[in-house]
Each structure stands twice: as structure tokens, then as C-alpha cells.
């Protein structure tokens, strides 16, 4: 570890924190329906969209209607994307003449993009036409991100509204989020990326003759626009297979920094939106504080593990840390940082190969995802995931002050606890369950590249990444088989919607409650004590679930590695 490395990490943190208040202020105005600086341009567009969609802006929905709208929207998105994938061969904007995508892969990919996972069992540049990339994938990149954000906002309204029935209008929130938040930021970001050298073209691939005289096909396309939303919307699906490690997706140190900031920007700002909407910004800072503690701990472990390198390589004189699978232009510090960011948030973009990390370095991304990606997390999803943990924390420890647990004035009772537990237990059921099936099913085992605990980690990572809607891959595992495509698709669906539906039920139940005024007897939820408690509960309840699996994967690999055995 170097001082330089830590300074870069701290610069990143400082920028993210600095953006929290302005973005939080702006998003709060957007979701409260207030005028924003951009209203003069966007308001007319917004009204046209409502007229076209037949949406009554003033009519709000209860939690069930809101959730049903969201589900209908996603079913539509799925069918459209599936059709595009299956039919791309006959559709325009296919200069490479890509053939139709097979059914299981289409299912996996369509689910992957509507759930904000962007798990890719394919190489983008060699499988998808431009039309699919833009109309299917980029479009879902926007909408799955927007739906994550609006669901978080709906849950926030559950906390902030008093004795209310409605938690907002899904369609209005979706339109406003896309139009006022995602579009303007993406346009700015795209222009920035083009300036940095990222291609943005509809032309076909470039043919080049290399110095040796060989013919090389250099894939290009509308890359910058897709990269912008893949980061801001924590989608993570790269235009190229190599994702953000590809020089056309992430050409410079500056583009790398801004992309990392973009992954966290909206998720971190949502904590401020929460604070503002419940009328106490400190509550938002406390949530961000808990996320920050877990984040920095993860960065420290990964950076330390990668910088220390592996014993066997060091023994060969290859000291200076583990550079396998890393881009030299990013180095160990920024590759470690990127890996932790992308898995803490549900982004999944990678600028280094996680499979090549040391055992402990690769374990941190795994833990980040297994905790449910609540460390800043996917846009929106991170916040509602964190709030679900807050409910459990408040309930476990809140009783210790001698009152029915309350959070920001709302009593946490049986219904909320039931829904929160449902959301929490569904994740291990998916990733532990499917891993258990995959590691004993011969056709599934055949996909594993490395033997022993490392191969186990590959499978565990694949299901964890999909269940948590992350989308980053450990590589090493041949995921494009019917078994992995279908079980992975199911994991993504369950991991997304079986968390959302309980979260919305909580929103509905909370919105209907009165607000209990705070007193000296109220559990204080804005201080360091609460942050520590929240972190403790997340680590114990989240962590204990997958401790056995980790012990058999990265932990044993690490212990074996220090003893000189590799897999």
C-alpha cells in the first residue's frame, strides 16, 4: 500500500461526499414535484409525455398500485427486450449482421437488463447489434436505474408521510427521474467521455492492419452514451466484453476517476434525499456513515491483499503486489478501489479481472454483494436494501431502550419486521441454494475453470452477483449454458423483485402510521452509536449467513495460498 494510493482513494471519497448535498437537494426537488433549474426546458416535455401516456400527474397510488405499475412496466420491458434479442437478425442497425440470440441467453440477458443486473453471458461486441445495444440495452439501462430510484423514493415517502394512503405515482416518478435526473447527467457525462476519447459512432467496426501485417477488427459503436448510463445507473453492462478495462470504455486516469464517482454519485445522494424528506438530514448522513465504514473497511482489505500480493509469487521475486488481471494504467490502488466500488454499488462494471485477485482481495467484492449491496448500492436499490437492514437493526437493539422500536418517528412493528426478514432471507436462499445445486450437478460443474476452492468461489460469485443484481463476473466460469442462463435469470428476478415487493409493502404500512414525536426516551438514530450498531447487525446477520460458504471458498484458498498451495 502506498500513500499515493490512499490519497487517490481519499480524493475519490471527498468528491463523492461533496456531491451528496447538491445532488440530494436537486433530487429532493425533483421527487417533491417542485420547480428545478431545468424545469423551463423539461417541463413542457414532461407534460407532453403525460398526455401521450394518459397519466394524471396529480393522482397518486397506494403501495400495491405502485408496485403493480412497476411490475407491469418491467414485464413490458422484458418482452420488448426478449423480442429484440431474438429478432435482431431481421432488424435494422445491424452492420455486423449478428445472428439471433439463443432463447436461454435471451432470457438471461433480458432479465439481466430489466433487473439492473447487466450480467453478461455474452461478449457485447460479438453478439449484439447496435439496435439492440441502444434500443434494448441502453434503454433498459435508463429505465431499470430509474425504477430503482423511484422505488427508493416511494419507500422514503413511507417514512416521511404521516397517516397517508398514497406513496406517489410510479409513472410520474419514473418520467421525472429519467427526464430530470438521468438524462441531463448522462448527456454531460457522455460529452465528457467523448472528450476523453471514448468512441460514439453508428459506423461499423474498423479494419486495421497491424505491424505484423495481420488484419485486426477494432470494434467501435455508440460506446460513450452507454458507458455514461452504465455507471450513473449502476448497470455495469459494458459495451465491450472487457468492460471498463477496455481502453475504449475507460481510456484515461481521469475517465476512470469520474466513472468511479459516477457509480456512487446518485446512490450516495439518495441518503441525503432520505434525510431531507424525513426532515432531518443527519439521518441521511448516518446511513451514509454506516455505508462509508463498511466501504472503507472493504477498500482497506482489498487494497492490502492486492498490494501484499501472493506468497508463491513473492517467493519467485515477483513482489510489488498482485498485478495479474489488472491494467497497468490503473495500478493496484485504483483497481482495488474500482472492484470494491462496483460491488458495493450494484454496478458490476470492472476495470480489472476479479478472478485474478488474491483470495482475500476477491472475497471483499463477494461479501459486498452478499450483504445485499447496501454499501451505497445500486441506485435506489442500495438505499432500500439499507433501510431494510435499518428496520432489523432497530428492532433487534431498539427494544433495549425500553420502547417499541421507532425509526424517524415511525413505529417498527410486526408487519415491517416480517417484510424486512422476507427481503433479507430471500438473497441467501438464491445464491447459497443455486451454488449448492451447481457444485454437485455434473453439467454445471463442467463449466468451472479452476478446481478446488477457487472454482467454488467462481460459482458462488456468479450466483451472488446475479442475485444481488450486480452483474460483475469473476470470470473463469463458462456461464453461457442453459443451466446457468436459466438459474441465473431466476436468481436475478427473485433477487430484484422479492426484495422490492416487501420493501413496497413496508412503504405502504409505514405511510399509514402516525409520526411519534422524538423525546429523551427515543432511540437516537443519527449518531455514531447507531452507525456502529447498524454496521454490527449488517455484519452479524448478513455475514453469518454466508460464513460457511466463504470458509470453503476464499478463506481456505487464502490459508492454502499462504501455505504455498494454489488452485
Amino acid at each position: 500500500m502506498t500513500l499515493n494510493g490512499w490519497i487517490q482513494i481519499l480524493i475519490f471519497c471527498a468528491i463523492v461526499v461533496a456531491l451528496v448535498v447538491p445532488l440530494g437537494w436537486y433530487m429532493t426537488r425533483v421527487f417533491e414535484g417542485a420547480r428545478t433549474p431545468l424545469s423551463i426546458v423539461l417541463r413542457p416535455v414532461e407534460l407532453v409525455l403525460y398526455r401521450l401516456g394518459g397519466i394524471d400527474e396529480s393522482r397518486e397510488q397506494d403501495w400495491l398500485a405502485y408496485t403493480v405499475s412497476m411490475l407491469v412496466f418491467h414485464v413490458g420491458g422484458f418482452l420488448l427486450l426478449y423480442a429484440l434479442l431474438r429478432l435482431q437478425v431481421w432488424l435494422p442497425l445491424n452492420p455486423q449482421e449478428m445472428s439471433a440470440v439463443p432463447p436461454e441467453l435471451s432470457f438471461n440477458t433480458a432479465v439481466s437488463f430489466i433487473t439492473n443486473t447487466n450480467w453478461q453471458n455474452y461478449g457485447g461486441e460479438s453478439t449484439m447489434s447496435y439496435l439492440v445495444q441502444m434500443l434494448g440495452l441502453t434503454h433498459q439501462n435508463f429505465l431499470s436505474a430509474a425504477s430503482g430510484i423511484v422505488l427508493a423514493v416511494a419507500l422514503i415517502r413511507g417514512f416521511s408521510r404521516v397517516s397517508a394512503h398514497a406513496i406517489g405515482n410510479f409513472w410520474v416518478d419514473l418520467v421525472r427521474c429519467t427526464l430530470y435526473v438521468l438524462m441531463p447527467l448522462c448527456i454531460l457525462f457522455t460529452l465528457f467521455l467523448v472528450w476523453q476519447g471514448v468512441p460514439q459512432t453508428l459506423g461499423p467496426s474498423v479494419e486495421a492492419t497491424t505491424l505484423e501485417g495481420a488484419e485486426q477488427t477494432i470494434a467501435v459503436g455508440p460506446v460513450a452514451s452507454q458507458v455514461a448510463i452504465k455507471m450513473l445507473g449502476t448497470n455495469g453492462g459494458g459495451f465491450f466484453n472487457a468492460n471498463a478495462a477496455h481502453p475504449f470504455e475507460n481510456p484515461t486516469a481521469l475517465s476512470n476517476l469520474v466513472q468511479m464517482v459516477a457509480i456512487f454519485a446518485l446512490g450516495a445522494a439518495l441518503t441525503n434525499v432520505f434525510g431531507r424528506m424525513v426532515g432531518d438530514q443527519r439521518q441521511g448522513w448516518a446511513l451514509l456513515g454506516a455505508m462509508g465504514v463498511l466501504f472503507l473497511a472493504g477498500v482497506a482489505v482489498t487494497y492490502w491483499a492486492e498490494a501484499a500480493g501472493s506468497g508463491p509469487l513473492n517467493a519467485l521475486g515477483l513482489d510489488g503486489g498482485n498485478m495479474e488481471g489488472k491494467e497497468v494504467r490503473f495500478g493496484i490502488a485504483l483497481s482495488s478501489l474500482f472492484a470494491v466500488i462496483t460491488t458495493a454499488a450494484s454496478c458490476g462494471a470492472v476495470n480489472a479481472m476479479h478472478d485474478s485477485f488474491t483470495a482475500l482481495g476477491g472475497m471483499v467484492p463477494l461479501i459486498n454483494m452478499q450483504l445485499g449491496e447496501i454499501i451505497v448500492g445500486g441506485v435506489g436499490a442500495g438505499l432500500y436494501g439499507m433501510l431494510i437492514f435499518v428496520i432489523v437493526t432497530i428492532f433487534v437493539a431498539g427494544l433495549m431502550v425500553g420502547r417499541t422500536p421507532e425509526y424517524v418517528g415511525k413505529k417498527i412493528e410486526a408487519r415491517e419486521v416480517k417484510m424486512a426478514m422476507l427481503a433479507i432471507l430471500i438473497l441467501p436462499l438464491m445464491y447459497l441454494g443455486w451454488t449448492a445445486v451447481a457444485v454437485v450437478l455434473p453439467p454445471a460443474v463442467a463449466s468451472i475453470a479452476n478446481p478446488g476452492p477457487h472454482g467454488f468461489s467462481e460459482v458462488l460469485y456468479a450466483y451472488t452477483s446475479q442475485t444481488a443484481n450486480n452483474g460483475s463476473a469473476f470470470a473463469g466460469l463458462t456461464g453461457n449454458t442453459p443451466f446457468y442462463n436459466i438459474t441465473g435469470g431466476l436468481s436475478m428476478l427473485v433477487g430484484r423483485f422479492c426484495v422490492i415487493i416487501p420493501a413496497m409493502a413496508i412503504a405502504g404500512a409505514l405511510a399509514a402510521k402516525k409520526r411519534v414525536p422524538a423525546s429523551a426516551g427515543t432511540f437516537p438514530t443519527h449518531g455514531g452509536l447507531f452507525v456502529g450498531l447498524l454496521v454490527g447487525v449488517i455484519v452479524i446477520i448478513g455475514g453469518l449467513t454466508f460464513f460457511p460458504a466463504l470458509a470453503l471458498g476464499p478463506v481456505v484458498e487464502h490459508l492454502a495460498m499462504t501455505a504455498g498451495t494454489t488452485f
Partner: protein
Amino acid sequence: MQASRQTRNAASALLDPRIVGPALGSAFKKLDPRKMIANPVMFVVEVVAALTTVLFLRDLATGGAHLGFTAQIVLWLWFTVLFANFAEAVAEGRGKAQADALRRTRTESVAKRLRSADRRAYETIPGTGLAVGDVVLVEAGDTIPSDGEVIEGIASVNEAAITGESAPVIRESGGDRSAATGGTQVLSDWIKVRITAAPGSTFLDRMIALVEGAARQKTPNEIALNILLAGMTIIFVVAVATIPSYVAYAGGVVSIVVLVALFVTLIPTTIGALLSAIGIAGMDRLLRFNVLAMSGHAVEAAGDVDTLLLDKTGTITLGNRQATAFRPVRGVSEQELADAAQLASLADETPEGRSIVVLAKETYGIRGRDLADLGGRPIPFTAQSRMSGMEVGTSWVRKGAVDAVLDFLTTPSAVTAGSTLRSLQPAVSQEASRDIRALSEEIAKAGGTPLAVARDGRLLGIVQLKDVVKGGIRERFAELRRMGIRTVMITGDNPMTAAAIAAEAGVDDFLAQATPEDKLRLIREEQAKGKLVAMCGDGTNDAPALAQADVGVAMNTGTQAAREAGNMVDLDSNPTKLIEVVEIGKQLLMTRGALTTFSIANDVAKYFAIIPAIFVAVYPQLGALNVMGLASPQSAILSAIVFNALIIVALIPLALKGVRYRAVGAAALLRRNLLVYGLGGVIIPFAGIKIIDLAVSALHLV
């Protein structure tokens, strides 16, 4: 004093053979799965214990390996369930003893049913044959056959059967003391009682059911906690059920008994085992305070209370105003005023009147005089005259409300209508009456009540009566404030007096000149703000407010209507107890929270004991996780499961006694409890498992 008594009782329950004996028996009876299912966590433990028993028997028949180890695991699994049942049985045991005592008093009573309410002719029928609306006659020596309302007569009643208090109480028709309780005994005189309770649902029946725990329902927080625990159990089912497949991938096998051991140690058995004992013990603590909670919900709501409405009289003040000073007008000595005031109060049997006599005696040595010796004629207090006094020969004295005395002195009609013995003196000196008004205003502002004294047409001065605030009450309110509870004093006094007493007692707010409607409105306003309100009351006119309040404590001396409306009954009829009730409610919630935190925090150590033990055969490197240095995989697993069972027993006293509540504010309380039960919960099992492991290997148990 009461607090120490209950603590001692709680601690001694585990040592009391009368409780432990039956509890051991019922721990086995409770193994019935139909009863166990109410407690999901322990039900799951019972299921896996049964499963491993079957596996053990199979191994025994087929001659499998590690029979001794398996047998011990199976045994300790059953112990885990039995310890949980034992905890519940001990908690119930104390109530059962009390219920038996109550049952003995509910002897088959005989009722004298009146043929009609206005006559005394009756027929004798068994008490159980009474219907609602029947009127019975209860005479000295009779036991009141069922609950009802006194409609005629007055009697002293021994209610020791219910309250444990042997001093008899007065029950009379009309007013706030009209409730007659079945099972209590009339000592003197007679009353007619209209029956209001159907057989089997009398106060005594309900009380028996409550103390026995038969009527116990899970409280809202308990339900939520059960869901949390069930959810965690399911999570650990997933975590443990996937292990065989992972181990198979790594080329090993893991036995079911070991997996069951891991599973049982991971699921929150500690809190699962003690949850119902905590709830029962909470109700029981209230009972020891002689407060009967009609539902567990009420006890829990007490812990959540934000606003406490307290009647001034009897709760905040000693109940009666007392004379504290004589304030003469100019030209009159204090001695003269005291003498006249005492004379005017000799016939006044009210506590206020007596306090004047006492004060005059104490400060000026004026002896109480015998009325007969004086040959005076006492003038009793009436609501119309609002004065009392004495006439001796041609001389007279009066004392009473300032306005009333002034009126008496200045109004000609009053003068002529009065006694001829009194010399006419229509013009009271302007100066004196100005003095009196100034004095009385000053006293009222300070929270006192002025009484004017006049003798032979001359105003002498004022007797200052004051509400005496109970000793220590100010500290109690400060404590409540630290708990985050706002206290509101309810009084019929005028706002000026109320403000002064409120300031002296240190309450946060007051409601002056309060009518029952005002009380109800105040409760509704607080509730609209999301607050929980507690109050106590005894009169029929309190009933709506008692019903509206989240915690309504009715005084046992109160009317039947009040007792029906409240969700708690204070058998001692001591309104100050509301504060203890709140503390008990908080204690109940805290104990649950503390043991939940402890239970979950324990898992860290158990993982470090069992995970290396299970996996070390497959990956010897994982032996590095055996941070406790446990002797062998088998002894590690056995030690973890033994610790898991023994910790239940070790925590029974805490569950029964409750975690102590300290009014130090939520933040400080949380910090302390987190340190003790959170951090302690992480550390203790490391030490505990290690010690058990040492014992296991020393005894060569595996």
C-alpha cells in the same frame, strides 16, 4: 422497598422447591408438539432433536461410528428444549401459586337474591346461578357472590382476598365507591348489589386466569420478535442445508448430527427459549406491585408511554390541603387570628379543619378546647354558606372562602337572617377588606388556598391552606423527564393555583379546572400527535378517559365502570404507581431486546467453534480458524451445543428479574446495554465454550 422485595422474589424463584418441583414436571409436559408450535424456534429444535434421536437409534441398531458422541449431542439437544420449557414453567409457577390462593377464596358462595330491588324479601340460591341484572342482598358476614354495583346501603368490606390488604374499605351506593367485587366479604351493615358480571367472567375469575397465564396472549412486540426469530431460523436453515453440497464438492462428507448441532447453536435459541418466560415474568412483576394488567398489550404500551396524566390530589399532593400560616390584617395579632381560626374549626372534622386546629396548637400553644366546656354552638360547613364557625354566647367566629365571609359581613340580608346573638356591624372597614383581598390574591398565586376568618363582625385575617406536594415526587418527575415522558397534572383548581403547584412539583404541564370532557380531549389531542397516553382514575366520569387512554389504570376502590374501562386495575388504589407501571413496561421490552442482542451476538463464537470442526477434515488449512484452540472437532461441537443449552438456564434469573431500567436517556441506556449484552454476547461464549471444552476433554467425554 417494593422493588427490593420483587427482586428477591425473582432471584429466589429458582431456589424455591415449591416452584422448581412442578416446573420440572411441566417442562416435560410442554414437550407436546401442539404446545411447542407456539414457539417456532424451540419447535424447530424439538423437531431436529427428534430427528437426531431417530438417527441415533438407527446407528445404534446398525452399529455406526461415534455412538457416544452422537448420544451426547442428542441428549443436549433435548436438554435445550427442556431448559426452555423449564424457564417458561418457572415463570408460570409463581403465578400458579397465587392463582391457587385465589381459588381457595372463591368458595362456593350463596346469594340472597331479592325478588325485587325495593324489598328485603329474598330467596337463597347458589352464587353461580346469578344472572346479570339480579339484585342481591349482602349482609354482615356474607361474601359478595359476584361483581356488581352497590345500589343501596353502605358497608365495610374486607377485600383482602383480592388486594391482600386487610384493612376494610367502605362500599356505598352512588359516588365513586360503588363497586362490589365478588369473593370479598361484608364485615358490617348491609348493601344491595346489582350483579354486573356473568358467572365465570367476574373480576376474580379474570384475575385467576391472568395470574395463571391462561389468558396470556402474545404482545405486539413479542409477535414481531417471533417473526424476526423465525426469519433468522429460516436463514440458518439455508446456510446449514447448503453445507453438505459444498462439502461434497470439496470431496468430503459431513454427518447430519454435526449439521444439526451447528444449526441449533446458530438459531437464536437463547431468546427463543426465554421469550415467553420474559413476558410472563413481566405480568408477574406487575402483579407483585398489586397491579392487574388485563392484557400484555397494556404492559407493553406502558413502556411506550409518552405522556402521563396524573391527578393532582392523591398523586402529586398528599390529598388534603393543610393550614400552613396565619396571615392577620393590620392591627390584629397572629395569636388572636390563630385563636379565632381554631375556635371556628373545632367543629370542622375535615382534614383541612383539623390541620388548622393542629397548626394553632403547634405554633401558638393554643390548646384545642372542648365544645361542651365552651358551651358553644357549632355552625357546620354547608355548600351554600361555604363557611363553618362557632357561636359562644354573644360572640361568634366564622371561617370560610374569602368571598363567602366578606359577603356574610357586608350583606344586610345575611345579617338579619343570621343569629340574634350577633351584634350588627354592617360596615366592614374598607381597609381590612382591601388587606384581605391583597393577601388572598398573594396566597392563591403561590398555589395556596386562602380562608378568611372573622370574629364578631371584624375581619381578622387569612388562614393559608396549602397543597402539600408529596416528598420525592419532584425527583420522580425529573426521572420521568429523563425517560422522555411528559407529565401533565390534572386538577380542578383555578389556573393560578394549579400553575404554582405544577411548578413546585416539577410537572411539565397542567390542566386546570379540568372537567372529564377536558381530560378526554387532552388525551385525544396527545394521541393525534402520535403519543401514547397513560392515566389513572377511579370515578365513573373517568371511564371515557380511561378507555381512551393507551394505558388506563383504574383504582380498585373506584366504580365498576372505571374498572371496566381501564386496561389495568391497581389493587392498592395508589395512583403514584403509574410510574412503576411504566418502568415495568420498559423493563419488559428491554429484557427482550437485551437477550435478543445477546443471542445473536453469541453466533460469532459458535461459528468459530463449529465451522473449523466441520471442515477441517476436508481442508486441514481451516484449522487456523480454531482460534479458541479447542481440543478436537468433536469436543468443539459438543462444547458449543452444551454452552448453547446451559446459557438458557444461566439466563433464567435475568429473564425473570428483567434488565434494570435506568432513567438516563435512551442514548446512554443503549450504549450501556450494547456494551453489556452486545459486546458481552460476542465475548462470553468464547470463554464459555473454551471452559466447557477443557472440561469435556478432561473428562474424556468424546
